């Protein structure tokens, strides 16, 4: 075969040494050049990809190695009483956690740690062994920062690795259960969940800031780059509450509830001139520093969330309505004979027949028949509107979470008997706060001022809902309640005139009025000549021989009100038995 090819005739004879034309590698060169060009193109493409397309991602990855966003802590606002006493303070605490995988477990080093943290050594050991595979375990939360500092030194000295210290804020309530219901609570995330902590959460809340920093290899911040968000501390909140008065109120209410083995109790103290709530306490209460231990129902602010029929404490408003709507004159005589009144098939009766009585006796002796007669003389629509204007069965507008509005049925639905029972406080329901606010109208010469739990710089503008003359007359008449022969002589205060009204209401149990379960009430004001304070005391289900408002609630009123007047330097408006009055002028030259 080979031979046949080479011996082809006519073909030029290939020469091996000279004149041999250079071999041409065109194709090969093109391939190589092409490959090189491709490689270069690939490089450029990759460069473009890295430089332009993946740029942000890669830069981010790089920065993550040394840039860090750290939180800048901010604290929740302080809640204070009207004099600036702290009622709720956020203080930093430290939570100590360990990494059980790293933490050494020899006794020589673990025992001092357990001692420093006041933990049981054996228990700690067991806990660490049980969680040996986890990498995070809380040793103790909410530790005092100075103790945490000692533990830090200890860990450094013993070369204990795997201990972490986390900064947290804990809410402390120095007044404890005394102000618990008003101030409220926060949850573990520092958000308000009860009381004013919840109502004004947006105001109090802290807004932690964030900043971007550069850290070195040992995680130390070496440079601040930028603030992403400035930290904003929560704003402080000043309540209208006076801690001293709150304490007195709490002490006396608690003692009374215990003495009468009562189920619960509420007390409201109002400043007549400004409409501020100076004290508001309930029993049972709870310790806000240990909210988990609270008994059921103890968290409720009963003065605002529980409604009750006002009973006889309603009568002054019936009298006021009758006077203002022109149904009776101030010197009217009402015939309550024979001590009961038939209305259709129903009957209204008094404890004792009182005969022909004036308005003062009606209130002092608390005549149901007299009140019912007044109410029946009124147009139901006008009577309803009068009571509604006083705020009975209407929200008070203080913006407290869980506050209820009570119930005052529209006049169109009233039957005559209901209109009669309404006059002595049955058939409508109000909160203790609403009732106290209505008495504040009597105290403020007929002006209704909006209530407030926040301190006011200036008294709020009020609205005249009762004629001033009527309010003044009522105060005069209500003073007879605390005099000898009235229903509550035990509400009297030496040196001061007191106007007030008792109430002893039977509780509705399963739709029937119980004759075993009562609510004892006293609402009053002092000094009656120019009232400064209105105080309501309600004791729920006193058990024992005494259950009348005049025996159970009135003594609490007397004690709390007299301390209040003394603390607030109110000048006595009545002669003190055996207390000589001294003109200051006589002191000149003696005292100096």
């Amino acid at each position: 075969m080979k031979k046949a090819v080479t011996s082809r005739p006519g073909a030029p004879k290939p020469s091996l040494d000279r004149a041999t034309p250079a071999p041409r590698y065109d194709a090969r060169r093109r391939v190589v050049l092409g490959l090189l060009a491709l490689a270069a193109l690939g490089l450029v493409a990759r460069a473009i990809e890295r430089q332009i397309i993946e740029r942000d991602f890669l830069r981010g990855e790089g920065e993550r190695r040394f840039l860090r966003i750290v939180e800048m802590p901010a604290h929740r606002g302080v809640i204070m009483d009207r004099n600036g006493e702290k009622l709720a303070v956020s203080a930093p605490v430290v939570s100590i956690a360990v990494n059980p995988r790293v933490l050494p477990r020899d006794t020589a080093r673990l025992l001092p740690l357990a001692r420093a943290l006041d933990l049981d050594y054996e228990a700690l050991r067991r806990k660490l062994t049980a969680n040996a595979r986890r990498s995070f375990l809380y040793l103790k939360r909410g530790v005092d920062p100075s103790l945490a500092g000692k533990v830090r030194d200890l860990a450094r000295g013993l070369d204990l690795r795997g201990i972490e210290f986390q900064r947290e804020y804990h809410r402390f309530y120095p007044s404890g259960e005394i102000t618990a219901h008003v101030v409220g609570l926060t949850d573990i995330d520092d958000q308000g969940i009860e009381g004013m902590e919840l109502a004004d959460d947006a105001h109090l809340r802290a807004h932690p800031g964030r900043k971007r920093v550069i850290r070195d290899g040992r995680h130390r911040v070496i440079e601040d780059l930028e603030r992403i968000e400035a930290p904003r501390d929560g704003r402080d909140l000043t309540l209208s509450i006076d801690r001293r008065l709150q304490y007195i109120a709490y002490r006396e209410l608690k003692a009374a509830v215990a003495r009468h083995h009562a189920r619960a109790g509420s007390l409201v103290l109002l400043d007549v001139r400004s409409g501020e709530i100076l004290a508001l306490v309930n029993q049972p209460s709870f310790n806000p520093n240990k909210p988990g231990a609270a008994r059921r129902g103890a968290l409720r602010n009963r003065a605002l969330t529980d409604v009750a029929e006002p009973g006889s404490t309603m009568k002054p408003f019936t009298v006021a309505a009758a006077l203002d709507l022109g149904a009776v004159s101030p010197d009217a005589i009402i015939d309550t004979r024979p001590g009961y009144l038939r209305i259709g098939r129903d009957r209204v009766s008094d404890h004792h027949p009182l005969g022909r009585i004036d308005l003062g006796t009606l209130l002092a002796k608390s005549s149901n028949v007299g009140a019912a007669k007044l109410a029946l003389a009124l147009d139901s629509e006008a009577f309803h509107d009068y009571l509604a204007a006083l705020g009975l069965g209407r929200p008070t507008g203080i913006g407290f979470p869980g506050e209820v509005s009570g119930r005052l049925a529209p006049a169109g639905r009233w039957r005559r008997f209901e209109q009669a029972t309404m006059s002595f406080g049955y058939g409508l329901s109000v909160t203790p706060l609403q009732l106290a606010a209505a008495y504040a109208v009597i105290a403020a010469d007929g002006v209704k001022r909006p209530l407030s739990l926040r301190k006011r710089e200036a008294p709020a503008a009020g609205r005249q809902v009762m004629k001033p003359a009527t309010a003044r007359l009522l105060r005069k008449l209500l003073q007879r309640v605390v005099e000898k022969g009235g229903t509550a002589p035990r509400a009297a205060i030496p040196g001061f005139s007191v106007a007030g009204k008792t109430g002893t209401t039977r509780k509705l149990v399963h739709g029937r009025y119980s004759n075993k379960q009562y609510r004892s009430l006293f609402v009053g004001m002092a000094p009656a000549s120019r009232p400064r304070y209105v105080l309501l005391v309600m004791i729920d289900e006193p058990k024992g021989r005494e259950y009348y408002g005049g025996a159970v609630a009135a003594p609490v009123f007397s004690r709390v009100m007299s301390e209040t007047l003394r603390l607030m330097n109110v000048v006595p408006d009545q002669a003190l038995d055996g207390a000589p009055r001294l003109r200051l002028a006589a002191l000149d030259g003696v005292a100096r």
Partner: protein
Amino acid sequence: MDARLLSTLALGLAVVLSALAVVYVEYEGRQLFARIERQRRAADALDVEWRNLQLERSTLLTNARIEGIARRVLHMRRPKTNEIILAEP
């Protein structure tokens, strides 16, 4: 020497000096930052202490505690009405 060489040398010197200045300023900046961080930590520690002192103060000022001390330790009591003298202006 001609002017071009001179200006090149001058510029070169300026570059070196500015490089040294950059290094120095950066160093100074780090030092200051470390100082401000120390001060911030100190301020933070003082804030922690202030808050705890506030708490301690309110705890010591609890009305129940003051009343207890007044009654038991100092034997204080409210004056009876016949012990009161009213001073009138």
